């Protein structure tokens, strides 16, 4: 079935809510369908208790949802923009991620924390960030970065079913992108998806950048270059086996991500591989600079399909 990225997540959430009455969603403006329409129609089906509006109160939303999770409900928390989620960092990092351990296993925080991220048409510095590497660094959290409607369907379902807190980073620029969704597909969280096979170079990526990597791979095919594109899908756990296996064959590794390169998760992937085998490696991330409003400036910090293709050509020389 064809769905957009937004519809896929909505479908998955609706199904989860039908199956389990303890699943509920909470965030600002959800009753009107959410800022990106990703909750459209759900209020009508599930009512205002289960598709709950919230005050502008990210710390309150996160803290309260955590409390409600500890007593046995399964909240889906909407942060609206990943940037605003920074207002709830103590709640996520000091409380949610740590409670189960600190309390010696007495509690659980089965939560999905949705944080729409990334560059989106001149949203400027406070509405464009991608901070997935932060969450990958925090023990206790699962980190999901779906790149396609299929994954935004199946990963959302799995995230709601998961007993760990899942930081769920949807990319704002692809809400309307369409794709086939097979409801039965069930690749588990933690497993990568090989989106293109190839023997010359391995490109590891996630989220929207992975779609660019696929574009690059397709473009290079006519040049006779075999680019294997691995979509990590989750950054923790991440599929080291898939990456090691592929790089073992190609000997060349590119990691491409939209977020800032310095301290980005690409560093983790390259370092992990480089500790274990000789590899030609290259990261492609944003410069350590801020995101401007003017499109020509915004574009200068953008990783593009062309840049990935160029890097692939170069590394294969």
């Amino acid at each position, binding site marked *: 079935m064809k769905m957009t990225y937004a519809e896929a997540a909505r479908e998955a959430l609706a199904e989860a809510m039908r199956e389990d009455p303890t699943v509920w969603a909470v965030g600002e403006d959800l009753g009107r369908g959410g800022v990106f329409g990703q909750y459209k129609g759900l209020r009508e089906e599930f009512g205002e208790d289960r598709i709950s509006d919230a*005050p502008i*109160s*990210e710390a309150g939303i996160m803290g309260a949802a955590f409390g409600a999770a500890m007593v046995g409900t399964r909240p889906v928390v909407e942060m609206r923009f990943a*940037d605003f989620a920074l207002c709830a960092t103590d709640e996520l990092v000091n409380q949610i991620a740590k409670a189960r351990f600190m309390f010696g296993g007495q509690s659980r925080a089965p939560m999905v924390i949705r944080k729409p991220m990334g560059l989106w048409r001149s949203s400027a510095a406070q509405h464009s960030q991608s901070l997935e590497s932060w969450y990958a660094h925090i023990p206790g959290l699962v980190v999901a970065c779906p790149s396609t409607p299929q994954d935004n369907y199946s990963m959302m379902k799995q995230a709601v079913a998961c007993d760990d807190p899942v930081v769920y980073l949807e990319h704002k620029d692809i809400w309307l992108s369409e794709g086939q969704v097979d409801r039965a597909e069930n690749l588990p969280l933690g497993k990568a998806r090989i989106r293109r096979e190839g023997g010359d170079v391995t490109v590891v990526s996630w989220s929207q950048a992975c779609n660019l990597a696929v574009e690059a791979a397709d473009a290079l095919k006519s040049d006779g270059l075999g680019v294997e594109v691995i979509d990590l899908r989750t950054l923790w756990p991440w599929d080291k086996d898939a990456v090691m296996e592929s790089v073992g064959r190609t000997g060349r590794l590119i990691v491409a991500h939209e977020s800032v390169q310095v301290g980005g998760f690409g560093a983790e992937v390259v370092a992990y591989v480089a500790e274990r085998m000789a590899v030609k490696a290259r990261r492609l991330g944003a410069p350590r600079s801020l995101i401007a*409003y*003017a499109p020509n400036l915004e574009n200068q910090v953008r990783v593009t399909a062309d840049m990935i293709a160029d890097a692939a050509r170069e590394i294969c020389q």
Partner: protein
Amino acid sequence: MSQTNYDLARGREMLECMERIRAFELTAKRAAVDEQLVLGAIHLSVGQEAIPAGLMRHLRTDDLLLSTHRGHGHTLAKGAPAEAMMKELLGREGGSCGGKGGSMHIADFGVGMLGANGVVAANITIGAGAAHGIKLLDKIRGDDRICVDVFGDGAINRGPFLEGLNWAGVFDLPVLFVCEDNRYSATTKTSDMTAGDGAAARARSFGIVTHEVDGNDAEAVTDLTAQIVARIRETRRPEFLHAKTYRLDGHTYFDPAAYRPAGEAEAEAQRSDPIMRQRSVLAAAGMSQDELTAIHDAAQAEMAAALDEARSAPWPDDATVFDDVQDLGSPAREAF
């Protein structure tokens, strides 16, 4: 309203200010809708212009102002040039922030405007801190500036409201907090998500002198804020103004605001549009229809010209992309 001692010049000044704000915003909206010239989201203050028009005229250029995502009106009223602001909305060279910020980060430090903010309520503590800085500088070299810190009704539900007001109260700071209560937080009725009696009640619980005003009545706003500003300049202590108003447009320029009860916006536009009200006041005080029209037309012409300038302005120089990130470890030298 045709009292003998009505101050016509003052009333006219406020109408001019409101007309300029509205013309700026509706011009920008047209540029966004018809020509896709405005790049990011813009939030219009149509219907809320009486607050900046009444208040900012009491401030000196060197007094400070912090505002929100809905900050065009405050910024214009504080004295920022419309052309640079329009260029900023279009992301052009010569924009208030060199095209880097856009509408939500508009700022003009030259007129004391320390920035709009894309994060609701964040400016509340920052504005308290700006006043804290004034207080410290006052002891070093004399500084009698004051700070005005504006936010919406939705902002009172975030922690920085508490932390900022408490800070200003504890440290006795020369800051005026202004809650522009337009009843909505994006698409949500704020009262549905607010416990208790709202902004003024909360402000009073911090022991801060608190006022309420019909924020659509420019005359009332300016009368009251004349006293408030003079008192803060003198006492160096915080005060709080709860200004009730109504957002006539959508949350963003592309929001049809279908969630509002049918007829609500129309009724408010009839009843409480501050520009209509101020026109009536001025007409009653003897201003001719021609003069009123001239004020309106002048504002339209100014903003049309500003848009023309902005439209033909170049994009920011690509070479500025790494400017003003940081000195040490600047991306201009090391971006990776």
